């Protein structure tokens, strides 16, 4: 089974800054891949290069075997892309957007689209501009799925959506995993979402792909560190392996991953335990 997505040494500079730094990644057919990283880590730029929206400075990538610098209409019809912010034409009604999008495709399975719209009670005559972020995301997802794509690429689909509605969007994404053979790449800054949904996890930070392994390995590699301060709380320094950080009162809490890049094993389903116990260390620091 060939890889749905192949990325080789893909690099992009914006001025002096390396926004994507020599990323190598292969995503096999049927895999649900979660690309995790904070905003600004380069996930979105990487995805835009995959979609042929942004040109790379060096390296190459292919989608379904097609070079991303020259994606053919046939390939684009087999790939669904949900850009960040779920862009749609706000002046259109939902029904008009469906009619508009449908005009581009020869293959169109309206039933899944109808299911989503009915389930989330989104009226066809509603103006897209009046929908909430979550509803617009659902409409975008439904429109992307109607052509029955083999590959779905979702750029931070839950960005800007509040927690309650996020769950609904994740439900929709889970629902579409049911069909086998469909490959999904989604990026997110929320660790929990990636853990729940992805088979494999990649972590991007500073433009570099720092980890690429099965979700289970990633989860087991997580370590939580709590720093208690007396007095003022400094900013958590940017550290290699830092996945999440937040300040809670006078504590700084950081979540680290020691995961590295592990090769895929050809027979999926057999996972060996990484061998270390998850733990929680608390360090009390008193600044001098």
């Amino acid at each position: 089974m060939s890889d749905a997505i192949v990325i080789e040494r893909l690099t992009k500079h914006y001025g002096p800054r390396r926004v994507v730094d020599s990323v190598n990644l292969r995503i096999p057919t049927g895999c649900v891949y979660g690309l995790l990283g904070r905003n600004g880590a380069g996930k979105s730029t990487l995805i835009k290069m995959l979609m042929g929206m942004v040109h790379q400075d060096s390296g190459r990538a292919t989608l379904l075997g097609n070079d991303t610098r020259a994606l053919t209409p046939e390939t684009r019809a087999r790939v669904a892309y949900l850009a960040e912010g779920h862009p749609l034409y706000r002046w259109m009604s939902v029904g008009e957007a469906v009619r508009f999008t449908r005009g581009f495709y020869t293959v169109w399975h309206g039933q899944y689209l109808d299911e989503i719209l009915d389930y989330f009670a989104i009226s066809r005559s509603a103006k897209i501009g009046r929908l909430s972020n979550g509803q617009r995301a659902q409409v975008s997802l439904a429109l992307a799925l109607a052509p029955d794509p083999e590959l779905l690429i979702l750029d931070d689909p839950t960005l800007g959506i509040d927690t309650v509605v996020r769950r609904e969007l994740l439900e929709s994404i889970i629902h579409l995993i049911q069909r086998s053979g469909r490959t999904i790449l989604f990026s997110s800054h929320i660790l929990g979402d990636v853990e729940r949904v992805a088979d494999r996890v990649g972590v991007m930070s500073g433009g570099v792909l720092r980890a690429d392994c099965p979700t289970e390995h990633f989860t087991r590699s997580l370590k939580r560190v709590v720093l208690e301060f007396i007095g003022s709380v400094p900013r958590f320094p940017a550290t290699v392996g830092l996945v999440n950080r937040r300040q809670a009162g006078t504590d700084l809490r950081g979540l680290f991953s020691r995961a590295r890049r592990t090769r895929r094993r050809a027979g999926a389903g057999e996972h060996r335990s990484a061998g270390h116990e998850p733990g929680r260390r608390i360090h009390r620091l008193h600044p001098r």
Partner: protein
Amino acid sequence: MEFTITPATGVPIYQQLTEQIAAAIARGKLRPDDRLPSVREMSQTLVVNPNTVARAYTELEREGVLYTRPGLGVFVSQAPAPLTKKVRRERLVSGVDRLLIDAVRVGAPPDEVAALIVERASEFQWGEAGASTP
């Protein structure tokens, strides 16, 4: 039957699920031959990749905790025959030692620990073994 998944804890989701199913069986909330939700239902309810649910079910099936009827679903197995006392001791001694180390650290005397064990035991479903002690 309520199961919950907590991400970002360092425990893989499939493992959380196997532990919770095993705990539910031990507490008697799931009885032998009860049907568990299908992989699809469970994955929708928990908002978790169906492969993860399938993995949990497969592991438990391999351990003999669950069994599958093709086309009908996944069910809870009958309680296994009790192991010998020697094997039971081997399996449990390290857990007990861990508990006792914590007890020493917090300053709990042995009879308090024993009383706590008896108290908590009432939460669980014992086979013939549990019938005796008050």
